[in-house]
């Protein structure tokens, strides 16, 4: 007889437990939107000061030169809806109390690689049309250019960052004799044509 009561109590307690864990009051629907990297631009930066600044100056100090890759993103019309339904109660994410975002923005065009090519002679090892990607590093953390790919393929929660830029600093200086330089940035995608951007500068 007693065992029956215990089983009955456990069955009744299950929905109560679910309600107990439903402390977050999360929305049950996550809108999964998509975005595309709609436009890229390339600018010269002068890092002589405390922070890099965009410049249109023809000549820049070669020890403080860098390029700024700017990307514009655009939200696309189609979306998916994901419904999160707990077992009994209407709003709950058991245990964690962390809600899924109400809206997410996933990338559609996946960037595969970023290459930087010098169009003029850079130094003895790198004549014109050589790849010099390894000479550039990200600002502050000095990571490889590949790290920018992660930023371009980023899936956003809540809000789409419509404009973002990535600063790449030139860490190896060209030969004294080579002043005029042109750098080409080639961005390749998994599912669309590559993008090519060119910038010109005198490195003094």
């Amino acid at each position: 007889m007693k065992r029956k009561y215990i089983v009955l109590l456990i069955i009744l307690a299950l929905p109560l437990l679910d309600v107990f864990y439903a402390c977050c009051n999360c929305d049950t629907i996550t809108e999964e939107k998509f975005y595309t990297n709609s436009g890229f631009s390339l600018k010269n930066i002068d890092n002589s000061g405390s922070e890099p600044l965009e410049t249109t100056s023809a000549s820049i100090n070669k020890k403080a030169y860098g390029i700024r890759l700017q990307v514009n993103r655009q939200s696309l019309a189609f979306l998916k809806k994901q419904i999160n339904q707990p077992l009994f109660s209407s709003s709950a994410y058991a245990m964690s109390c962390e809600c899924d975002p109400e809206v997410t923005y996933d990338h559609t065009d996946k960037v595969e690689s970023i290459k930087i090519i010098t169009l003029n002679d850079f130094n003895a090892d790198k004549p014109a049309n050589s790849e010099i990607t390894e000479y550039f590093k990200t600002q502050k953390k000095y990571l490889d250019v590949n790290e920018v790919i992660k930023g371009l393929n980023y899936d956003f929660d809540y809000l789409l960052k419509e404009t973002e830029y990535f600063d790449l600093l030139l860490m190896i200086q060209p030969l004294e004799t080579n002043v005029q330089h042109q750098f080409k940035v080639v961005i390749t995608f998994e599912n669309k044509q590559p993008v090519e951007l060119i910038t010109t500068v005198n490195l003094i």
Partner: protein
Amino acid sequence: MKNINILICLLFTIVLSNRIYSQEEGSAYKSKLLFKASYGLNIPFNNMNQNRETDYLIDYNDKPQMIPSISALFFIRKQLGVELNLKFTTLKDNTKTEESFKQFANNQYSENYFVNTSAPSYSLHDPVVTFGIVYRLETDKMYLYPKLAFGGTTVDLNRGEIQLKEKNTNNAYSVIYSGGVYETFFTVVPSVSAGYKLTKRFWVDLSVNASYFKTDFTYDKTFTNLYTKETQTENITYKKNMFDTYISLGVIYVAARKK
């Protein structure tokens, strides 16, 4: 000769006073468990400074300050007891300290670099905890307790960081100062308490103590080129004898008395 005379006078006073107290023994020496709350002036006689930037990262207040203390005394014999004492030291003014660290870094590096600093302090008020023996001399109205205690003084060693961006170049560096989180130093505290018994339960107390500890810790200064990841490490060692005195006024509550 002069010292010997002083010593004889002192001994004579102690022996004589002990005799006087002994005459009134019938009504004294009744308290068993006492609790004391005091407030007073702590005066450090020296500081740990080495005129280095790490001086600003050490949470040890070397300025005179008013601080509270609490203690519990328990008499295991007529004239012998034990005492547990907590003295609440106040820490440095963290805003001023961080500003001084920033100033030091600027003076040192601002000619060639753009300087950013951070030296956050998460320190709480670390009490100086001591435990020791108490010798008891009492009359009906007065008491005198010479004491000798041992314990630990905790000094918080905050982390400091300087970010350097070289002027007119793409180079950046970091300078990190790390000394662990804290160090606790063995501390010796001789002291004397004297006072007047207002009632059976409440006494007023005047205490004077001196404390001594020896610092022995090292800050590691790591200079890193953020591009090449090359590092240079320098050790900044602090080894110093530290003395301070604490003069406090307090109230004693007699929680338990001998029947």
